[in-house]
Structure formats: C-alpha cells, structure tokens
C-alpha cells in the first residue's frame, strides 16, 4: 500500500513523498516502514514506542485513532495511509499590549 509522507519527514525516505510498503495490518505496515526507513522511527514514535501525540495517521479518510481496531485494522494494497503532523498554535497569552 502507499504511504504519503509529509514534507518534514521526506529527508528520512530519500526524498520520496510516497512510499509503497507491504503489510496486512496498519501495525505491520508501520513495522515494515520503519524497518525500511529506520530514521523514521524516532520521528514518529516516542521512547515508549507510542505514536507521538502530534502525529496523525489517516487510513484513507479515517483517523486511525477512531477506527475500532486501531493499529490492528486490516488493510488492502489499494488503501492509502497518510502521515500528517498537527498544525496548531496561536498568540496564546493576552498579557502583551495592543499593537499601535
């Protein structure tokens, strides 16, 4: 199946924006992905081996976190996985004065 790699992680996949990885479940696909591209492992997972909190994984258009079987979800070769780090932020505090 194809895995779409976000721009910041492409330096760990030899510049590829999409890589093809085999596997019967999402977990298997990720094991094979990080086996083929070892440097991706620490980018995607924390020291405990859990997916970093800001990394979103989509199976086609479904958020992996909300799939009943999560990582154990079975996949077909025609499915697509997208790795998408979160985008958020903001001015935050209200302690600064208004702009002139």
């Amino acid at each position: 199946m194809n895995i779409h790699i976000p721009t910041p992680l492409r330096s760990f996949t030899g510049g590829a924006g999409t890589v093809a990885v085999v596997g019967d479940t999402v977990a298997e696909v990720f094991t094979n992905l990080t086996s083929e591209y070892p440097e991706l492992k620490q980018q995607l997972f924390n020291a405990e081996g859990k997916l970093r909190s800001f990394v979103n994984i989509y199976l086609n258009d479904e958020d992996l976190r909300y799939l009943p079987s999560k990582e154990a979800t079975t996949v077909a070769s025609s499915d697509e996985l997208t790795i998408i780090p979160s985008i958020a932020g903001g001015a935050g505090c209200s302690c600064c004065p208004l702009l002139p």
Partner: protein
Amino acid sequence: MVNNTDLMLHIPYSDYQAVRAHGEETYPHECCGVLLGKSDADGNHVQQVVRAGNTRSDSAHNRYNIAPQELVKIQRQARQAGLDIVGFYHSHPDHPAQWSPTDFAEAHWIGCSYVITAVAKGKAADTNSFLLSGTSEEDKNFVDQAVSIDVASTTPKGQA
C-alpha cells in the same frame, strides 16, 4: 552546506496580500491556512495559498488549529497539483507578528515556513515568517526568515 539564513520565503504579491486579507476578515479571531509550493536550496517558494478553518472556536482569538482531516485533503490537493506543503500561516489579532510559546510548542513541520500576520484593530500590520529548523522535535527551533515578495509573478489563484 546550506545556511538556514539563506532559506528565504518566496511568495507572489497576490498570495502575500491574500494571507493578510484573510487575517483581516477573521478578526478578532485568528485565521489559518496552508502554503503550497516547492522547496529548493533557495528556500520555500509559494505557488498557492489554501485557506483552512480554525477549529478552535473555544478560543479563536488567540488559538488556531487546522483539522487533520482538512490537512489530509489539502495535502492530497497539493500532490495532485505536483506541489508540496511548504508552510502555514495564521494571524495574531492585536498581538505582535512574532511566534509565541504556543506557536513553538505546536510547530512540528521542520523545514516549513510559519507566517504570522499581526492584525491591529482589524487592519493587517506586520507579516513575518519563521522557518522551523532542526532535525527532530528535540532540537527544533524557529529562525527568522526573510520574505521575498514577487510583485511580477502572476501564479494561478489559490483559494485565498
């Protein structure tokens, strides 16, 4: 070796104005969106600006968040157009165009440009860009990024 200070943000004037206008439209709330284009040794080149919704309706005056589902769609749109996500933008209503601790904590796209427009009392003021530099979450940092506004360029219009 490429020095980070050489990595500019190149943006057509129309897109630059669209980013600023978006901040004025959503004032007093923060706007947000995605910059599509290409990256090279010269920096990030914007070719299209895509507006995104701010899901932080609970605190939209000082927070923004783009729904991952919307990002997936934007990334797909970029791929089909032969473009990459090269940056993001948002506004700081009545707040300086400088990255905040929140911006830094929530920034994860290393190599991408984070553009911030200060909107003072409804009018766009300064617009600055910050390059998220580093190799991982552990050593990331924001670097002031020069912005080159291309007044001659007439790229196809984005959604902004």
